[in-house]
């Protein structure tokens, strides 16, 4: 449609100018323009993904060819098998899943417990401690990197999974507490009151009434915890990089990358990267609405 209006404008006949005027004022032209711009932008955003995918299916020789082939012929699926087996990615995956599960359990349990306390129970000092929660969000994580590393090395936690799992049991992160607290506050109080009259303990109300109601918010936290743990590089780099048997997928891919001394095997690296990105994309499509919820909350806090 955009090209059509261009050809019209070059003619400059008075009657056509009227038509242009109608089009410019009309919603239609704006829609077409918007759509065209979105399409161009989307192509730019997709190009690196396409490059990743086609390169991952090329033979070593095809990678070096100019102009680049967009459809590898024939596609070499063997790259994926080779990338998976030249490094023990199976072990890396198992390690990552282990850390992931512990983090999910720790963060969901601990953050929801604290969030419930902040949202639903009145006690002296509550506002002070919630202020502390918010202020820990303000401190850039990197500032504590050095002292935390010093402490964990002194207590012998380096080269163990402990630094990447144990802290999650203590509050589960300020942002998650904040997000779940907002949700708990939005729930109606009548159910809890009724249960309280029936003699239900506060912990019972939390675990049997509030947690089931908070499933959407918990799912949001679970999804972001997954993304965080799966993508984390700094943590494993600091604490696991000396023991190849404890590598996570992220650390394994980074080491795989720097392992080539002579000619870099871009075909295998692209295959390995694709395999690392794939679970994230699957999670995104399965849990799209929880993503949007989580981001909306993080935006609102500003």
């Amino acid at each position: 449609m955009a090209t059509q209006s261009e050809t019209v404008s070059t003619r400059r006949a008075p009657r056509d100018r009227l038509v242009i005027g109608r089009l410019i004022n009309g919603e239609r032209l704006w829609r077409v323009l918007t759509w065209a711009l979105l399409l161009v932008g989307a192509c730019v955003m997709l190009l690196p993904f396409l490059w990743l995918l086609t390169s991952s299916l090329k033979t070593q020789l095809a990678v070096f060819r100019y102009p680049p082939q967009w459809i590898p012929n024939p596609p070499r699926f063997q790259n994926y098998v080779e990338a998976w087996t030249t490094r023990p990615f199976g072990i890396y995956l198992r390690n990552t899943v282990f850390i992931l599960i512990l983090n999910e359990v720790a963060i969901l349990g601990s953050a929801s417990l604290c969030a419930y306390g902040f949202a639903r129970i009145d006690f002296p000092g509550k506002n002070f401690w919630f202020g502390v929660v918010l202020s820990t969000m303000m401190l850039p994580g990197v500032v504590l990197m050095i002292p935390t590393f010093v402490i964990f090395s002194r207590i012998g936690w380096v080269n163990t999974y402990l630094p990447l799992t144990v802290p999650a049991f203590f509050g589960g992160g300020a942002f998650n507490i904040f997000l779940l607290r907002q949700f708990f506050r939005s729930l109606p109080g009548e159910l809890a009151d009724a249960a309280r009259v029936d003699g239900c303990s506060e912990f019972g109300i939390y675990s049997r009434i509030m947690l089931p109601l908070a499933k959407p918010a918990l799912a949001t936290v679970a999804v972001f915890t997954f993304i965080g743990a799966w993508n984390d590089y700094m943590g494993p780099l600091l604490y696991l990089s000396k023991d190849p048997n404890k590598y996570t997928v992220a650390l394994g891919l980074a080491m795989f990358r720097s392992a080539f001394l002579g000619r870099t095997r871009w075909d295998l690296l692209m295959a390995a990267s694709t395999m690392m990105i794939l679970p994230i994309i699957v999670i995104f499509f399965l849990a799209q609405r929880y993503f949007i919820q989580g981001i909306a909350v993080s935006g609102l806090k500003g």
Partner: protein
Amino acid sequence: MSVGTRRLGHLWPRTAKSRRAVTGYLFILPFILGFLLWFLVPALTAVWLTFFDWNMIRDPVYVGLENFREIFRDKLFVQSLKATAYYTLGSVPVSLVLAFLIALLLNTKVRGIAVFRTIFYLPSIVPAVANAVLWNFVFNTEFGLVNALLRALGLPKIMWFQDPKWAMPALIIMSLWGLGYTVVIYLAGLQGIPEVLYEAAEIDGAGRWAKLRHVTIPLVSPVIFFNLIMGIIGSFQVFTAGFLITAGGPQNATLFYVLYTYRTGIQYFDMGYAAVLAWILFFIILGLTLLVFRYVGRLVYYEDVG
């Protein structure tokens, strides 16, 4: 707490009010412990470290303010600040404007809008390591996508990550690919603007530009402000791309501040000096945030409630 009451009857407070207080603290106990163990103790350790020379093998030696004096002699410290500032100035304003324009486009009801939103968002959740590996290849001098495009346009190839002049622009371009997160935050802000305001503006004869200028921009200005601050905070902490792709080079052109801190502490085990560097980063970020609040914050329009 009926079970607890029976077993620990003598510890459980008698009045309802104090019972609630104890229950409340039991609920938030994990956070309090976590705050003390993983926040306060490291923060105090970081203060203590700044006064010591310590490589974690020998005993720490008290050196007074020597670590702070070192800053003024350290050329790499200055270089890492320059590199980080360059990155921030290059990536934050561009991504702020570009993300806003994309969000405006995505806040329409054209066909396939859900697909477009997904496409713009996806790159921002790509794992940093996979991202680095991918873009390392995209900018590869001989076989990369970017140079293939340049060659197709008849332009000379660029030695992106080998040329001190081009390494940082390449990393900035790479960072722009991940602006989808910012876009979605804008989008949430745009969708929070009541339709009534646009209708009222239309009745007053406002065109597209006037509506953007006088309704949209003022009403999303808190979100723009939020994204600006988050952008600055985030860009001062970049690490992975500089660490994996360029290793701070060539000629320290991409020696990001956090990368330099990491090297000082984790690779060279100069813990005292690394702690000083970390604190300086904290005060730089704090200072910049306050400056932004002071000079940009007053441009932000907050809707009157009530």
